[in-house]
């Protein structure tokens, strides 16, 4: 990813807005952008979802492979999550091997889903020591207008909940819906003009400082945290966004449950 030049004017403008409790696109501090979630959007994937948050659009596709279980875990399948931000998603994303930014994105989203235990890897075993399912979640950015993290995480869990294990095609039984026992949800906060805001757009990311990602499970259990970029935050600031994340993840989980 090329690092764009941050105009001093943009930073100054964002500071002025923050001082007046306003944001560059007219939202309030904790307000998210317009959200759309769709299921079954990719005909060749065993599960898929499209998420749109404002002008940020991402896709998630689930594929299955049969793997040999690892020798130390003969009864377990695997979950693999990979994120790719290709040049189609924005002028600052470039072709080539995944950039550190794209790798961080994939790994943070992966941790939230994996650590929540929403996919029971023991249930993915077909023949102990010989055959097990590997679930592969591929996240794909179509349009990056900021906060790819939350969009990827939401599309990822929505696609997993939509997935069918293609047992018939692999001749190991009948197709069945992939069991997903929990719904981890990520909320991201960026410090813009000296205060944290929820769901930053690309201009806020560009002229902002550090960001914090929180993934919460069904019972508000914390499954992954990540602080990114340069910046310092206080315990009070963190407590405030954690409180907000508890409310917001519940709202988002309700949206997924209603689909």
């Amino acid at each position, binding site marked *: 990813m090329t690092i764009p030049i941050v105009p001093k004017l943009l930073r100054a403008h964002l500071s002025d807005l923050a001082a007046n409790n306003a944001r560059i696109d007219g939202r309030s501090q904790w307000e998210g952008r317009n959200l759309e979630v769709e299921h079954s959007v990719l005909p060749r994937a065993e599960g898929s979802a499209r998420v749109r948050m404002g002008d940020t659009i991402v896709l998630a596709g689930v594929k299955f492979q049969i793997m040999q279980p690892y020798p130390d875990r003969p009864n377990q399948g695997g979950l693999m999550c990979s994120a790719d931000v290709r040049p189609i*998603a924005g002028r600052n994303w470039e072709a080539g091997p995944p950039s550190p930014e794209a790798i961080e994105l994939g790994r943070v989203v992966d941790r939230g889903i994996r650590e929540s235990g929403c996919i029971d890897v023991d249930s993915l075993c077909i023949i102990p020591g010989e055959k097990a399912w590997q679930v592969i979640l591929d996240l794909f950015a179509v349009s990056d207008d900021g906060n790819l993290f939350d969009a990827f995480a939401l599309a990822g869990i929505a696609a997993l909940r939509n997935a069918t294990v293609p047992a018939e095609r692999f001749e190991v039984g009948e197709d069945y819906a992939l069991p997903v026992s929990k719904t981890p949800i990520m909320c991201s906060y960026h410090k813009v003009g000296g205060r944290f805001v929820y769901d930053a757009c690309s201009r806020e990311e560009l002229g902002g400082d550090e960001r914090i990602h929180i993934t919460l499970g069904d019972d508000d259990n914390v499954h992954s945290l990540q602080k990114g970029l340069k910046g310092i935050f206080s315990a009070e600031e963190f407590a405030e966004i954690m409180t907000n994340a508890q409310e917001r993840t519940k709202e988002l989980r309700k949206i997924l449950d209603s689909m």
Partner: protein
Amino acid sequence: MGGYGDVQMIDENGLRMDGRSPGDIREVTIETGVIPVADGSCRMTWGTNEAIVGVYGPMEAHPRKIQRQDRAVLDVAYNMAPFSTTDRIRPGFNRRSREISKVTKDALESVVLLELYPRSKIRVTIEILSAEAGTRCVGLTAASVALADAGIPMTDLVVSVASGKINDVVVCDLNKEEDNYGEADLPMGILPNSGELVFLQMDGDLSQEEFKQAWDYNMDAAQVVHGLMVEALKGGDSQ
């Protein structure tokens, strides 16, 4: 081609497995402006094929060594998303996608008025989200719509269509099964206003007469698809 199997793919009425006549193409839909942050974009479905194309530029070409003093450079990348096929594709470039990127670039460079933008770069990214035979044609056609959507001057749009042969019958626009078991494939990139070509490939086995028939099918199909492209660019949704 996949093989010269005994699979019967034309029924006694001369219809194909999906009910099409030999000269019919699959259903095509075209949408522009699908990537809000891009300068131009296009989403095209063609049967179960789906491609999205993003165009960025003209913009600064860097590093400077890639700049051309008399024209813009066109950066074209064709890629199949990991979830676009039955078996997952490992991300990253492979020889096939490199070749298709190159021939697509060669085709588009033939129509884009690059000399209007010296020292700059125009980036065209083709992503196949769902594949069902003929993705290179869908990618090239959608790329020309996305370039037009970005307002980049071109001498003409490019319509790319393939015809081939199954069970010794020449047919237009092969689907997946026909492509797997077919005996020939002839993809062409056509300038619909002049009938000239900017892209041509072929593999398989065609007699001179069969070749002429496949060529004519492609020319006819190009006119049909061109109508949908113009409609999409003029603002209406095409179906």
